[in-house]
């Protein structure tokens, strides 16, 4: 009993809550950058240029087809080697920035496919209506197709966000103090991993369940104006 109270002291809980805050911040950052990358990726995959289409597919396949942990390690350990061999200067990678970049690129690959299928799912008649009203390709895309595509894409984007909250835990492997990392630190300090891991699970659940609750409300709101 004593050990549990000791582990769950105010300071230790604050330490974990800060870790949870970091996880959430990383997930929000990666989702945002991922949506930007995903929009670019989807535009490339839908474009008429075969080169762009190829680059878009290459991006998606590479990031979906390799483990996330490998990608994180590649950005953290591999890229500095590349940097040094090109410029001659050493690069000390910041685990938070590297983690954010790795998560963003990975998420961007999934978001590319989400947005692409969202765009393809918009009725062909919408394109034709834009065309007959004198709107060009990019105007039709911007004012007619994308707003409808984004609306369709919101539910899967929310589940992508939940995935990111969980996957941000992989960044603990490169020493970024996010939620799982703080649990491991406490576990090692008190020679008891059970309590910190259960606490971390509860905190992850609070985050993910809150997101999915607000996600469902948003979906219902969007359904009204449909």
């Amino acid at each position, binding site marked *: 009993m004593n050990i549990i109270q000791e582990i769950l002291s105010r300071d230790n809980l604050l330490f974990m809550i800060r870790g949870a805050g970091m996880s959430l911040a990383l997930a929000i950052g990666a989702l945002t950058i991922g949506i930007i990358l995903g929009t670019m990726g989807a535009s490339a995959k839908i474009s008429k240029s075969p080169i762009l289409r190829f680059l878009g597919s290459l991006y998606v396949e590479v990031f979906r087809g390799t483990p996330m942990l490998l990608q994180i390690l590649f950005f953290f350990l591999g890229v500095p080697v590349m940097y040094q061999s090109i410029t001659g200067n050493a690069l000390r990678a910041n685990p938070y920035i590297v983690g954010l970049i790795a998560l963003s690129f990975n998420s961007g690959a999934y978001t590319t496919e989400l947005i692409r299928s969202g765009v393809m799912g918009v*009725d062909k*008649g*919408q394109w*034709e*209506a*834009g*065309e*007959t*009203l*004198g*709107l*060009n390709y990019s*105007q039709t895309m911007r*004012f*007619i197709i994308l*707003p*409808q595509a984004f*609306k369709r894409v919101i539910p899967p984007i929310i589940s992508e966000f939940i995935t990111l909250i969980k996957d941000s835990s992989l960044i603990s492997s490169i020493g970024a103090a996010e939620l799982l990392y703080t649990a491991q630190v406490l576990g090692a300090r008190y020679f008891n991993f059970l309590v910190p891991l259960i606490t971390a699970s509860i905190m992850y659940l609070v985050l993910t369940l809150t997101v999915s609750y607000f996600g469902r409300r948003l979906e219902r709101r969007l359904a009204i*104006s*449909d």
Partner: protein
Amino acid sequence: MIKVDQISKTFKDVTAVNKVSLEIKKGEIVCLIGPSGSGKSTVLRCIHGLETPEKGSIYVNNELLDAKNSNKYRALRNKMGFVFQHFNLFPHKTVLENLTLAPMQAFGVSEEEATKTGCQYLERVGLLDKKDEYPSTLSGGQKQRVAIARSLCLHPEVMLFDEPTSALDPEMVMEVLEVMKELAKQGMTMIVVTHEMGFAREVASRVLFLENGKVIEDRDSKEFFEQPKSERSKNFLSKVMYY
């Protein structure tokens, strides 16, 4: 106004349009009729450039409609309005926004001006009170009237209608045909693909009967309905004019 010269269009292995020629003068109202799959919609879509025929050419005001000459192509297409069977309203925009989007974004009309024109046309189709509603709240007939108004906001010289009443419940057909009739009275040049024989008979100046991608008859509408020449059109009329 519009001249179609020997166009052909094939989808995969099916020849939808086979060497069709026709000419439409300013102020004429021409109905394209015929059985399903006769190629009438494809002809109409080719005229607007929604489909590109493999062979033949299309002239608008004596100028060749050619996708390679993109500025002129755009200018010629903008002379034509198009109304779809399934309306194709923008579901995420209000009725008024549906009307003002293209004038403002594609033609640089000010919001004030676009709104004024939009309201004017909504009034004409009797839907001004719906201007702030979303399309999903409208009935089929109302949607199609909005689609017609949307097209008119760009001041086309000719209106193309692709089965404008085919997706409607029977009690909605009338209100759409009334709007079209009103438009015809005001002298709009119109090409209408339709199954509404009553409309073709009463409003059209000419009727083109198509079958298997070919124009079988091209005649004054009164004459056509009173005395169809070909066996096929007689047969068709006997089946659709059932009362």
